[in-house]
């Protein structure tokens, strides 16, 4: 499967066994993209919002 990077419009290859919530990186701009929908062999992605690392004790 493929998707377009919302940041640089590059084509991003997506593994066939991808799951919702998985993060892929754009090969061109490096932006991390979150898989938000998978329907009939096509995927929707959005820019992943990463929160800082502070996961407690």
């Amino acid at each position: 499967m493929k998707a377009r990077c919302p940041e640089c419009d590059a084509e991003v290859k997506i593994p066939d066994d991808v799951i919702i919530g998985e993060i892929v990186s754009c090969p061109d701009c490096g932006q991390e993209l979150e898989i938000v929908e998978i329907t009939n062999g096509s995927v929707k992605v959005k820019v992943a919002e990463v929160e800082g690392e502070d996961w407690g004790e």
Partner: protein
Amino acid sequence: MIVIKMGGDIVGSGSLSPAIIDDIKKVSEEQKIALVHGGGDEVTRIAEKLGVPQTFVISPEGIRSRYTGRETAVIYAMVMAGMINKGLVVALQKAGINAVGFSGVDGAAIRAERKKRLIIIDENKRKRIIDGGYTGKITSVNSEFLFLLINGGYIPILSPIALGDEAEILNVDGDRAAAYVAGALGADLLLFLTDVQGVYLDNTIVKKIDADKVSELLPRIGQGMEKKILAASEAIKLGVKRAVISSGFIDHPVTSVLSRELGTVIF
């Protein structure tokens, strides 16, 4: 003003070595002091005994952390604020130190924002977003509340729990909680008492670390220590004069740091 963070190795299930207690007493007679404790391993031990297996997740940077689900959050508060904290309070009270133990939810002492989502590396080594559970990023410390106690002659000892925006009980990192508390109190010193002599680099203790240059050093440092150095540099940015990472297993673990160069100083 000194803030001392005592990690899980130091406090166990709520006890302290006589060396630490004596030293805290000595220092408390000369200046203001506040304590923050850790104790994640004890949380894991009790949670598993209660039949709530603990899950650990790995961040993209390779840091392993507890996954704090709803049930775990309750157990976390129970062990931290009920067992470890009260064990420490009586250990200090026994020595005539008028300790008051509480957590960040009490008097909204530590507020945090719940992390709605976390990015982890899953079992197939792929990055994935999961629900954030009950951990938080500290947003503020109620220094007025802490000063009320301190100026009243009490020594606060805080559990690493924060109050979320929706009044959730949140698991927050003890080192970072100590950094924010030290910052809010305008501490001269934030002392991390650990099970090692300081930060090691190529088998030697690093004497000094410039808080602004921490990022260069981090890739060469082990995980647990990395968190501590980050928290220390955060404290410096919040106005703390210096942070020291030093051993809690020596004689006079606190006064030694005050009187001579010891451990690793972050400034």
